[in-house]
């Protein structure tokens, strides 16, 4: 399958096909951005992108056999996208800023890419194979790829790019994810062979993230301000705190793509101002619409909302080491006492789907455990009585400020817990302090938080390993630890599926947390904007977007 076909596979469907799902409805394929990320948090986001989610990547869209594509009618026009935060430079190897990677997909390509259904697809590499028990990976490259400076891309550029990521002088914040690469060879101009130090199940999907972009060596020193890649758009200008402007790259390797002539990413940090700009037509797309605004946006003439499940979850984390929560019955009582649908309704305005374990339904590895703890306050009271708390107890829920969606989850949960006799005091804690005291300090009883998924389930589930720094729930289970170790190196897809299913079941059985919901991503667009896709990683991909009739 070549890349052109690939693109067609997830080519935009007509607007009608994407019609917004009604609140609470769950489209099985897909996800998107959630919650507004306030600009003042951009810095923290840099530090934590990918670890904790409070911010969010966009995901997918239903793909499938679309109507016949007639690219010629889609050509032309410009588009303005409102983004929450400014980029942190445009050198993909030197940042972890989500705001940068949201944009760089349009400037750079990677060896492989992920489609809206979370499947790995060819990009610069047309095909690949792994051999020698997963220690060797061979990638066959396209031979029709040009950089924006006009030079043809070869295997040497791939080798250079990965060496640049791994070079300590580059100080790439993602370098540690690729330390496993022990050698890179280029037998010819269209072939790259990676040798790994040990097998790694997530290796292929790790090549789909924007931070492994392939860059030309001659432009490497100035990528931050003058990015040069092989992507569908080339750089025009970056005016800090104002906008990034791109224009169509005519030699992009997919014919007739992209459709748009020009794209502007305008920085508007205030969520309310973003929506107003959309309503007034000043911008065409707002990729992250807060849950409480969606109903209003749908009623607005001339606008549409696309909504997809987000690759992430929200939960009520429990400090498993702290009494009374060290008692399984108390944790189970919490699970029975919380009505997840009511939390979704009350705190998330119906925008979300209930979950039963630490995995969003959009994941390939998802196991439906939502029936494990049905809402049953009587059972919760019985379990509490059995554990020695017939009259309930008092506790505190730590809420991360200023993430209003987590705070709202906490408020609704406190209201529900009161009904089984658990008196939960709420304490909002400013994010930096929260990270220090709650997340890394583990000094809390209950807290509401979210986690963003990666493409591979391992980074998502390995936080529960006994000695993980991110095991803020203080969960200890040697059997679970063993499963994590096995899952990370296993190259047998069937076995991995088994392992991750069992891990989800263990987390649910041990009631390690109350797994609340998987949020939906919502994108607000002008009616005439077509083809916007949501992906399981945080990118705004403009290749598939065009302007329809007004």
């Amino acid at each position, binding site marked *: 399958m070549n890349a052109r076909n690939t693109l067609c596979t997830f080519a935009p469907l007509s607007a009608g096909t994407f019609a917004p799902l009604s609140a609470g409805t769950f489209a099985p394929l897909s996800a998107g951005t959630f919650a507004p990320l306030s600009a003042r948090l951009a810095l923290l986001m840099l530090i934590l992108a990918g670890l904790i989610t409070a911010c969010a990547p966009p995901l997918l869209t239903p793909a499938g056999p679309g109507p016949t594509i007639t690219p010629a009618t889609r050509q032309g026009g410009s588009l303005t996208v409102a983004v929450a935060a400014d980029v942190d430079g445009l050198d993909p190897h030197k940042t972890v800023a989500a705001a940068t990677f949201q944009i760089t997909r349009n400037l750079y390509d990677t060896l492989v890419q992920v489609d809206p259904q979370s499947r790995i697809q060819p990009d610069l590499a047309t095909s690949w194979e792994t051999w020698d028990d997963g220690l060797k990976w061979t990638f066959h490259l396209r031979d029709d790829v040009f950089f924006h400076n006009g030079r043809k891309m070869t295997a040497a550029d791939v080798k250079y790019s990965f060496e640049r990521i791994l070079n300590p002088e580059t100080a790439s914040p993602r370098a540690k994810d690729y330390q496993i690469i022990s050698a890179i060879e280029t037998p010819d101009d269209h072939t790259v062979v990676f040798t790994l130090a040990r097998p790694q199940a997530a290796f292929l999907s790790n090549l789909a993230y924007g931070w492994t972009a392939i860059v030309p060596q001659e432009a490497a020193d100035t990528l931050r301000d003058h990015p040069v890649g092989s992507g569908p758009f080339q750089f025009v200008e970056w005016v800090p705190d104002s906008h990034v402007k791109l224009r169509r790259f005519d030699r992009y390797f997919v014919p007739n793509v992209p459709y748009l002539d020009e794209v502007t990413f305008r920085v508007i940090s205030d969520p*309310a101002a973003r929506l107003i700009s959309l309503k007034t037509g000043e911008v065409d797309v707002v990729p992250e619409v807060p849950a409480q605004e969606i109903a209003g946006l749908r009623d607005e003439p001339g606008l549409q909302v696309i909504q997809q499940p987000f690759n992430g979850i929200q939960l009520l984390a429990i400090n498993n080491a702290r009494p009374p929560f060290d008692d399984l019955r108390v944790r189970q009582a919490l699970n029975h006492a919380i009505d997840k649908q009511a939390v979704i309704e009350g705190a998330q305005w119906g925008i979300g789907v209930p979950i039963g374990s630490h995995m969003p339904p959009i994941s390939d590895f998802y196991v439906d455990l939502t029936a494990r703890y049905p809402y049953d306050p009587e059972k919760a009271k019985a379990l509490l009585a059995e554990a020695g708390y017939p009259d309930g107890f008092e506790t505190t829920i730590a809420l991360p400020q200023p993430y209003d969606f987590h705070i709202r989850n906490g408020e609704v949960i406190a*209201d529900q817990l009161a009904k089984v006799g658990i008196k939960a005091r709420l304490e909002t804690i400013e994010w930096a302090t929260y990270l220090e005291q709650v997340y890394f300090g583990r000094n809390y009883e209950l807290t509401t938080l979210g986690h963003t998924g990666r493409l591979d389930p391992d980074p998502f589930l390995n936080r529960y390993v006994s000695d993980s720094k991110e095991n803020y729930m203080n969960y200890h289970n040697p059997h679970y630890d063993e499963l994590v170790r096995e899952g990370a190196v296993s190259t047998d897809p069937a076995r991995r599926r088994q392992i991750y299913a069992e891990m989800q079941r263990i987390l649910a059985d041990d009631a390690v947390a109350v797994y609340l919901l998987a949020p939906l991503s919502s994108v607000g667009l002008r009616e005439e904007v077509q083809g916007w896709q949501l992906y399981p990683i945080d990118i705004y991909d403009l290749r598939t977007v065009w302007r329809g009739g007004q």
Partner: protein
Amino acid sequence: MKAQSSKLKAQTFDRRGSPPKVKRPRLIAEGFQPGRKHSAFRIPHSALQGASPLLVWGVVIVLAMSAVALLGYCAAPHDPTAMDIASRLRPPDAAHPLGTDQYGRDILSRVMGGAGIALSVGAVAVGIGLGGGVVIGAVAGFYGGLLGEVLMRLMDALFAFPAILLAIAVVGALGPGHVNAMLAIGVVNVPIFARLTRASVLAVREEGYVEAARSVGGTDWHILWRHILPNGLAPLLVQASVSFATAILSEASLSYLGLGTQPPLPSWGRMLEEARLFMDRGPWLAIFPGLAIGLTVLGFNFLGDGLRDHLDPHRR
């Protein structure tokens, strides 16, 4: 007006004489009966007679808000924290005269509950400021010397911070919550009262009657308490009233920032913050707590200004 004032004065200083038969506005304060007990801090019973409309309105609003706060504790129409998602964001109607918020909570009950929190924060914060400030200011003014210098330079350092910034710093150290907010705002108020007290003490420290009191063997404590501080009472009262208004505003600001009153307790500032998200669909979410803050702050400012005019001997 002048004639009335002079009569007032006469009445003030001649308690045994019969009250002058003069037409004067009827005041709430008229319920005050002249006390028999001789206390240095007793306000003469007629202190509020002839009060300006400003003062009258201040007293009326403050008393009304206090009544609302009391009712909020014992007679709120609904539980201010009870959620009812089905009736969220309802505009004002018979069941919910001020509408409901994003969780279907009754805004009237929350505004009433917020009054209790606002007034208690104001009272405790002013209490702390007054208590700490008067002690420090009196000591610094009365004894002077190195101790006084050190104390007042400390106060200057505190005073140099913008009030809300200092309050945020204190709450940051203590952790969020309305009790800590009270403490923080109280700390902010200490230097204000300390300066005021010290100035009053300095002004009369060398007066003849102080010397007289000392010459008959009056202790420092006695002289301070009975002879010096009563002279500074009027500006302290005025400042207390103004500080009360500021404290309410500060609590609202802290709560707006998430550092003050914690959910689900109703706080006007927090209600405003939450209302921000729903301004277009539920303006009543913001209007009523906003009005409550405005009215209360106005009331205390009226009270302060009115008191200042009223207690100022030069304006009689």
